[in-house]
């Protein structure tokens, strides 16, 4: 499956490391990109490519938080709950999300569009409260900003409010992000 569709990518990934096993994280990302989560057949296939046993792949998948072993919502909202964000209102952000989407951490909306998780520090401590939705960061979230982000995502699948290359304090004369 992965081997056919991602032949060149896999060959490129394998060429970067002197041992095959090192490629397990990049290949798992490939599998997750493809199916939205890491399925057992994907793990078996990756084990085959890397000449590992399936337990060896499985133990890696379960160690790292970014791999899902079960399908989740299309948009994974990951809210940072570490102290620094908590000091500036991450709990409030979660309450806003609960009010708008009706779900809390660990839950998925019934239309399978959104899943909320709480995560630990995303290295955005100066712009909290903040969240990561799939690959994108959304920082300095106010209630209004949250509404716009959710509307954008529901409509277009992405939002222009996502963070670009990070700088804080923001450069003088830069376009405001809020």
């Amino acid at each position, binding site marked *: 499956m992965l081997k056919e569709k991602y032949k060149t990518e896999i060959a490129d990934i394998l060429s970067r490391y002197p041992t095959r096993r090192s490629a397990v994280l990049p290949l798992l990302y490939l599998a997750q990109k493809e199916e939205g989560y890491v399925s057992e057949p994907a793990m078996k296939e990756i084990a085959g490519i890397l000449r590992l*046993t399936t337990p060896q792949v499985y133990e890696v998948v379960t160690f790292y938080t970014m791999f899902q072993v079960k399908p989740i919502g299309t948009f994974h909202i990951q809210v940072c709950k570490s102290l620094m964000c908590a000091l500036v209102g991450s709990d409030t952000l979660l309450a806003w999300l609960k009010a708008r989407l009706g779900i809390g951490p660990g839950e998925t909306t019934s239309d399978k569009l959104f899943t909320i998780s709480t995560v630990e520090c995303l290295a955005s401590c100066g712009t909290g409260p903040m969240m990561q939705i799939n690959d994108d960061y959304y920082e300095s979230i106010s209630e209004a900003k949250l509404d716009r982000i959710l509307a954008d995502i529901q409509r277009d699948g992405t939002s222009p409010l996502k963070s670009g290359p990070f700088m804080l304090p923001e450069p003088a004369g830069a376009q405001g992000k809020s």
Partner: protein
Amino acid sequence: MPDTAVDTLRVTIDGQSLTVPKGTLVIEAARQAGVMIPHFCYHPKLKPDANCRMCLVEIEKVPKLQTSCSTPVTNGMVVRTATTVVNDAHKSVLEFILANHPLDCPVCDQGGRCDLQDFSHEYTPTTSRFVEIKRVFQKEYFSPLIEKEMNRCVQCLRCVRYCDEVMDVKALAPVGRGTMTEIKHFGSHELECEFCGGCVQICPVGAITSRLSMYEFRPWMLKRADTICTYCGDGCRLTIQTKANQPIEVNSEYGAGRNDGDLCPRGFFGYHVSTHPDRITQPLVRRNGTLVPATWEEALEYVAETCINLKLKHGPGAFAGLITSRCTNEDLYVFQKFMRLVIGTNNIDSSARYGQINGVHALRRVQGTHRWTVTFEDLSAADALLLVGTNVTETNPITGLKIKEAVKKHGAALLTIEALVPAVGKISNIANLSTHDFPGHPDQFGTMVLSLIKAVIEEGLIDADLSRRASSYVQAITEALQAISWGSIEATTGATSAAWREAARVFAKAKRAVVVVGQGVLRHPGGPEITTNLLDLLLLTGHHGRPGCGLAPLAEENNDQGAVEMGAMAEFFPGPRDLTDRQARERLMSHWKEEIPQAVGRTLTGILDGAKTGAIKALYVVGENPVGTLPPSSGAKEALARCEFLVCQELFLTETAALAHVVLPATSYAEKDGTFTNTEGLVQPVRTAIDPIGESRPDWEILSTLSVLMGYPIEYGDAKEIFKEIRSVIPGYALLGPVPTPPRPDADAVAQYLERGYAEDVLQRYRVRTREADVKGKGGAKTLALVLTQSLFHSGKFSTRAKGLLQVEATGKLALNPLDAERWGLGEGDPVRVANERGEMITTVTLRDRLPEGLATYPEHFDEQARVLMPLTIDNGTGVPYYRSARVEIEPLKDVELERMR
């Protein structure tokens, strides 16, 4: 005494000074000083992981406590293992572990032999201050044989590390992170692995236990007997633990025996074989066509009388005897003495005839002694190992572990000529560790060995000294190989000349080189020739005779080696010595005080032929089962049915015993004392673990009683007495093997071989054999080479009576390479017909990555149908029957056909 700064260091442990080799860990040094530092995750077989933190000690001049399991001794180090600080540290680690540990002791099989219990007893306060909530893992079914209770786990990861570092199976994985780390296999799937029991043995608590004996006992209720395993030739030391005369479990002590505590599934889970309900408990005598119970008196008198009569009428030459290599040396010795002395014939054979004898003849011919000139330690210490046709991790797993150790721990070069392709699977695959692998079918192995020798010669790697003293030998081989082109080699072997040359270089340049040869050679046509060629390889490279070097044929059954050495063979006296050996004959006669028949007797197939023609009228079978082992094309069933008198000493009513006139119940290995000789040649004691089942008696005892009834008494008080006689008949027996040092080749024998012995058949041996199954499964042809092989989970048919092993493998399946299967539209579990001109069999497919294309295998343990397909050929020289490979056509079975068959 001054220390040599290079090799030894001085260390003080709790005031005791001692000297240790450089590299010794503090925990090991402490043990040498008699100080046991408590620990969970440390184990001498594993790389230190230092995760439990239990072994913390104080080291002078080091500010923090250090884990003694990961700290090597430095010169002048002063260690304190029992100060208040250290004890408090132990207490704190135990407090942490016990915080989450369940109060399972009353229901935990580890209770009474648990490290956590023992250390808690020694170090902890009696109250707990943990008032939080213990972490709970959902109980899940793990496997039929191995049970998992994760709440008890202390996350030492010994099980994971053992499965990885020692076994190379990697079936266990720590899953998740932090305190919820759980040992699993793969998701919610059941554990699939080798079931060697290593994780059960190495778990310091009751997190991983055997399911076979769950809840049946408490350790202090068990009686222990240290004995030797009955399955393969590795000869592992087992401790059979019994309760009320039932075997409850088996373990093996670290540091004891040749296996050093490691076992395989057969040894660890196969112990119920002795107490199978089908055991014959009384003598049976055939009356009016049916076997009915009789008393020992009745049965033995009947046997004695009939034998005497038949002997009078037809002479001793009309008698023959067969014995299994599973018997003890004492059984084997008394059997051949009985047959030679009481009956008066050399028509005897043992199951060593099925393959072991091929290796024996080759070794005796070239080096005089049939014994290994290496030990298991030499295997681990080898610089280069060449495996030919062994599938060692399935046939002789403990030998396999020594080879794995050589590669993984010591970086040995591993050359494999096997019916295996590197492929990761659920059980270990020795080809995965191979540095130079040459996959092939058994009928290619001979040519592959020649390729290696040819490469050695052409690369100029012949030992200079050998060239000098055996120039005609070298020349003959060189010329014979010159006639074989690299082109034909590459076509036959599928490997390039460059690959063979590279392998030759690696092998020749190694200081310590061992060749291991297995059933894939010994039980296939060409066995003795290929083995002899492998000895040529060792001679040409100059390794032969040097320390740590030699040829090591793998014994399949537990006492194959003993059967040969006790002379339970048509051509041998105890020793083994040739029947023509006058010195041996005289020594024997001086002990036995009787004439011993001169002529070499009939071997197994000769006996069956004799039975067919009527030359053999009476057959005495001890544990052997020709009808159930040989293919129908051997005519074994018809032959035995023609016997006027067939007596079987048996544990179970096998196909052969079912034809007998008298069946006498014998004891299994677990019910008698004696000795087994393992594949290395080491004689090891077998001890009674349970009382004889029913009225069964040790084989030697039955024969002894019979001998009295027949007027030629061979009487012994116990097995020890027999062994004493063996030692006087074979001077120094038990010290001729690897202990104290392995035997050296007989220089005279080698010289003779090099001078002229080799020439007898050098041309026949050095030619490319035509392949009987010329296949790669190409195109539409669905022809394959089908080979009967041994499974890791079984040994012969004997193990199919062990309920534990049947839970892992209860039936046979046709194993195919996935590419072949795909080509013919076959998937895992699909029904298939396998057929050739001799017959057909219906079975299911299983996919096996590690098979080379064009090769299919079937486990011999369930080969009732598969045997039908096998042709039988007999080795001209050694009389070994070959019936393990055939050319077959396979065909997916459509549902319609399946229905029709039903």
